[in-house]
């Protein structure tokens, strides 16, 4: 009966047909949030001002907290594999408010370690994954080159056979952690003349203290706390055992590992969008213009409503992609096309959006939005990487178009 009608809006739910996080994950979320609040967030403003953070201390602290091993097996020091747990960590990590810091941690845990875990043999895992999970060494992933932005097949770094060794020559750029990594998973052409260029590429794990490796940090619009860099390899000699996976399998490995890169970027961007919107609203409620709180102006209220709606939509898609990825990782029979579409669409839906939210956050701050003392400008600069990095928005559309036969 109507008298019993309860019209209390619900705020969170965990259903039977669209499950995602379990109770255990919500418990983990609390401890992730506490860790971020206690161990990372308090230092961020100082680190950002210095454009640097203490590498070993931070990676080891995060490793000791267990946050680098959620996706990996206990055998190598992890606590998983549980991608959902790691998704919770990524959502909470956004609360550092520093995309650059998060990028360095992510390039290590979500890219470099992932490749070693999925494509390496036990020797690789012992040498790179175990200390990586502990935060004792820092890895990076090297694909992009100065002359081949989004065109993986077009890379020119090459490795030539020399006896039992390989000798690597070339250049990589826009490599997160590239300026200070201990080791790097490197995409190189081992058979540049291959008829099928997709079989031309192999992966190596290369220690950066080898002769012939040069690392240099890049200055960028945002992500200034990250140690994104370029690397040169001049006749760098590595043993055959440095090869990750089979010779010529590099392209396929990269394509397969893109799924998690895109999902993790989507989680980061949709969560950042949400946090940024909350910050914008908080400021709008407090700041007055023309004698009233900015948040009371209808144009701002409606703009916030639109952004909240778009964030909800993008996050729903991100969670869908995450569900498919987890199902795929846990042995379910996931349609590879559906997975590829969901992950590419999620990246495309989230990255530009996160920037647009940050741009409105700057706008609502007025003159203060332009000031370095407020974090709005940093979120805005940082978010702008999203539609460029990890495959531009345009590349996502190209990838999607292929799945539709266009």
């Amino acid at each position, binding site marked *: 009966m109507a008298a019993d009608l309860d*019209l209390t809006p619900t705020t969170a739910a965990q259903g039977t047909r669209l499950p995602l996080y379990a109770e255990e994950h919500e418990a983990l979320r609390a401890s992730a949030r506490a860790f971020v609040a206690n161990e990372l967030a308090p230092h961020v403003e100082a680190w950002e001002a210095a454009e640097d953070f203490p590498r070993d201390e931070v990676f080891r602290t995060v490793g000791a907290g267990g946050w680098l091993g959620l996706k990996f097996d206990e055998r190598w020091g992890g606590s998983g594999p549980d991608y959902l747990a790691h998704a919770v960590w990524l959502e909470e990590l956004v609360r550092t408010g520093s995309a650059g810091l998060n990028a360095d941690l992510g390039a290590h845990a979500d890219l470099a370690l992932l490749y070693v875990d999925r494509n390496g043999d036990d020797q690789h895992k012992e040498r790179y994954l175990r200390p990586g999970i502990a935060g004792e060494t820092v890895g990076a992933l090297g694909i992009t080159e100065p002359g081949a932005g989004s065109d993986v097949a077009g890379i020119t770094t090459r490795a030539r056979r020399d006896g039992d060794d390989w000798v690597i020559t070339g250049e990589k750029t826009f490599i997160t952690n590239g300026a200070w990594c201990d080791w790097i998973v490197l995409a190189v052409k081992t058979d540049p003349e291959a008829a099928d260029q997709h079989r031309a590429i192999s992966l190596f794990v290369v220690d950066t203290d080898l002769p012939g490796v040069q690392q240099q940090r890049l200055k960028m619009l945002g992500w200034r706390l990250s140690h994104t860099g370029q690397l040169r390899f001049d006749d760098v000699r590595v043993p055959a055992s440095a090869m990750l996976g089979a010779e010529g399998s590099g392209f396929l490995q990269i394509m397969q590992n893109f799924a998690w890169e895109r999902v993790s970027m989507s989680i980061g961007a949709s969560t950042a969008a949400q946090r940024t919107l909350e910050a914008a*609203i908080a400021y709008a409620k407090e700041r007055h213009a023309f004698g009233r709180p900015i948040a009371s102006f209808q144009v701002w209220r409606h703009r916030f409503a639109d952004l909240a709606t778009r964030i909800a*939509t993008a996050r729903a898609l991100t969670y869908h992609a995450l569900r498919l990825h987890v199902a795929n990782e846990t042995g379910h029979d996931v349609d590879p096309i559906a997975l590829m579409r969901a992950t590419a669409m999620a990246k495309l839906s989230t990255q530009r959006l996160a920037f647009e939210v940050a741009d409105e956050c700057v706008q609502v701050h007025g003159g203060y939005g332009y000031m370095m003392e407020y974090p709005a400008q940093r979120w805005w600069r940082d978010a702008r990487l999203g539609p460029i990095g990890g495959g531009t928005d345009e590349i996502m559309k190209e990838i999607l178009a292929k799945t539709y036969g266009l």
Partner: protein
Amino acid sequence: MHTVVPDDAVRIGEPFTEEHESLRGAVRRWAEDEIAPNAEQWEADEWFPDEVFRRAGELGFLGLTVPERYGGQGGDYWSTVVRAEELARGRSGSVSMALAVQSDMATPPILKFGTEQQKQDYLVPSVTGEKIACLGITEPEAGSDVARIRTRAQRVSDGWVINGSKMFITNGVRADYCTMVVRTSPADEGDGLGWSGISLFLVDTDLDGFHVSRKLDKVGMRASDTAELSFTDLHVPDTALLGTEGQGFKQIMWELQGERLISAIGAVAGAQFMFERGLEYSRQRHAFGRPIGSFQVQKHRLMDIATRVGASRRLVYEACDRWNRGEYAINEVAMVKLDTAQLSFWVADEVMQLFGGYGYSQEFPIERAWRDSRLMRIGGGTDEVQREIISKLMGL
């Protein structure tokens, strides 16, 4: 490790079971075999036969979530989702809308708030399609603002006497009864308008004093009949009151959730259908000697569409999941209403651009879908109203 895959989902990542998929097949066959072939003609006629309601009832599509004891299928809300999705293949926004009014707008309040007698008198024949229902909320001077309705019911010894009018009432020309929002007492404050003092009624359209003032001529959804209704000393018995007197505003707020949700599901389904038409055309049609789908701009246009449709569908499913579990998910519902109304017209417009001159021509069905889909940003609460709801829920 915790699993994110429901045991009975037939496709990973989707909320549907085998039972849903079998229903999907049945709805699709009906839509493709019995609706689509007639859609153009019905639009030209500015009418579709009442028989469509009875056939939908016969097939069990009007009571998917109604308990079996009232003639329904007793299914969950995902059955409704399946029906709304597949009806898009009938290529008739008019029919989809008319059926949605019947099963997901005018009758759910009867099941939720009605007496057993009301359920027998109205719900049961609505499930079979014997009675056609309409929903009377909007008035000429109260478009998006339910609280400002002026249609009044005056208590008399043996019932109520209703005076007033209703506007933009889908199924209003042919309906057998109307689930109607009426002011039974002045609002507590101000000018006597406001959310208090509103009640719901079930009103037979053959009563004296119930007039269909006119059948409205719309730019789209032309096979669907939309009426302006007026009521002059319309006498209804006590038993016409639906639910609790004075609780009508709350009751209709609840109803609006289901209304907006089904419109959102239909909007995404329509957008998906249009995307598929665009994709097909982009492969077939040539310009400058190659398929237009090979031009990067058209390719990216289609992928933008696919991405937005894909994203919107996921939020709709989340809202459906909540509704299915009985939650009052007003925030999510307003968001999906806002998002999908914009989506469906935007997709239709992009596909029209892809089709070029043929998109503009009535030879191709694109322009009709374009006109039809534009209603979503207006009906069931405009975009602006949804933004008001969402921002208020954010504490703004």
